[in-house]
């Protein structure tokens, strides 16, 4: 098993911490992992992305230019990373703020209304955990239990009182994710039960 994942969005959306929690979940699962951020002048409002690789073998390059899975959280990231998903790969996106929806016919596409949910729930800080839930639903290379462990490992102890809210957000993401299209290929997960295949 090897999954090369890009998570991309605005700085401040929790892209890097979502990647870290995913990577730590991989560690808890006994996998090899790498987490490589785009570091730079990005701040709140700029773009930020992180490459996470999960593998059951030694990982060579932490830097790759095509991905099994892309998690896209704004339009710039859609423009940049939709073309970089491997044929048969997975694209998960939050439709909020997306003006051009994905057009590829050769990849599986899922939507997660994480922004809308976080706004409705009045807790924007769990936005990224809703997205993580969507990812592990459609691509369950880490178990929910290990995701919880990865979450606890990633957050400093002084904020561990937020663990239940974050865990709930992961479960919400798993339930909310919608299937836009499924193609045969790299998709390692089952389409969610509520999937509407169009």
């Amino acid at each position, binding site marked *: 098993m090897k999954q090369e994942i890009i998570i991309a969005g605005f700085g401040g959306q929790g892209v890097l911490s979502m990647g870290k929690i995913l990577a730590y979940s991989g560690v808890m699962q006994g996998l090899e992992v*790498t987490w490589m951020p785009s570091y730079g002048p990005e701040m709140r409002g700029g773009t930020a992305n992180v490459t996470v690789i999960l593998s059951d073998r030694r990982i060579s*390059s932490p*830097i790759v230019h095509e991905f099994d899975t892309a998690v896209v959280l704004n339009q710039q990231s859609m423009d940049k990373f939709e073309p970089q998903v491997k044929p048969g790969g997975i694209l998960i996106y939050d439709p909020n703020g997306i003006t051009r929806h994905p057009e590829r016919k050769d990849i599986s596409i899922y939507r997660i209304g994480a922004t809308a949910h976080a706004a409705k729930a009045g807790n924007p800080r769990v936005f990224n955990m809703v997205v993580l839930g969507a990812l592990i639903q459609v691509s369950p290379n880490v178990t929910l239990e290990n995701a919880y462990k990865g979450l606890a490992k990633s957050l400093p102890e002084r904020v561990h009182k937020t663990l239940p809210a974050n865990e709930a957000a992961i479960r919400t993401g798993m339930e909310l994710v919608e299937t836009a299209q499924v193609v045969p290929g790299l998709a390692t997960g089952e389409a969610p039960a509520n999937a509407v295949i169009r």
Partner: protein
Amino acid sequence: MEEVRLMKGNEVLAEAAIRCGCDGYFGYPITPQSEVLETLMELKPWETTGMVVLQAESEIAAINMLYGGAATGKRVMTSSSSPGISLMSEGLSYLAGAELPCVVVNVQRGGPGLGTIQPSQSDYFQATKAPGHGGFRMIVLAPFSVQEMHDFVGLAFDLAFKYRTPVMILSDGVIGQMMEKVVLGPQQPRWTDEYIAETCMDWALTGKKGRGRNIVTSVDLDPNSHERFNLKLQAKYRNIEENEVRYETVRTDDAEYLLVAYGSAARIGEKVVEMAREEGYRLGLLRPVTLYPFPTGPIEVLSRQVKGILALEMSAGQLIEDVKLASQCRVPAYHYGRTGGVVPSPGEVYEAFKAHFPK
């Protein structure tokens, strides 16, 4: 079972320094290695091991603080990125001239000048040939993983004291910023004053009770005597070249072609080997772990086996010169690299390889 943690290369440098019993860290923040100082400040080792952590007013001050600490036999360390390392050149030369041990980490970024903050490997010449004036050498270790960022701190201190020389860990923004699994070593005690006085008796300034006077200096105005000192340094370097070469090979046993790359480029190189093997190319990788001393012998041997060599480096071509010298240009050897902070993709390197060595 040992605890496996997920950490950035830069954070691990800080943890490793504390755990291997470092006495003092002196540094000045610069991207992409600011997490070293940040992590040390968070961990507050002065409350546990007694290690001193100090943010100097500049890199020039930091390297001279190393000189002071090292002169007393303390295990001292700094880290910076390319422009900051240039500022340390004079101090490094003085440390080498005074035969003082210390550990200097360069988490390279793109140059020249202030350049960019993105990863680069364009300080290879600086690190391996002339870190400062006067014809000295430093042992240069090139980690290619977060675990090696950890392991090489202790190794660097061991080598620095074994040979009484500055040792550089030459990393880059990829390895510094990346998170991977790491197993941290146990906490080693710091050396006691008594231990230092005993083991560094010949040279360290520990108070001269019970021994003759030690003088730490790099100045010697008599050319004949200074030539004798230079010859002694050169003998030390030959000793290092003979005993401290470190390298790793991947699938070179049956290799028809050889990729040579260090640090983060070697990670990309490993992926290129995987891609090439899938298409039937018998490609292997040699990764120099010490850049000085350079694995000249192993490359010389492999150059008798392979049909061609590609040196991969995030520079306009520096490593390639040592590869050509080592292989004595017996087979065609080419360079591929990107500059200015651009990290090459495994795919583009593979295309370059195929263009040079078509089936």
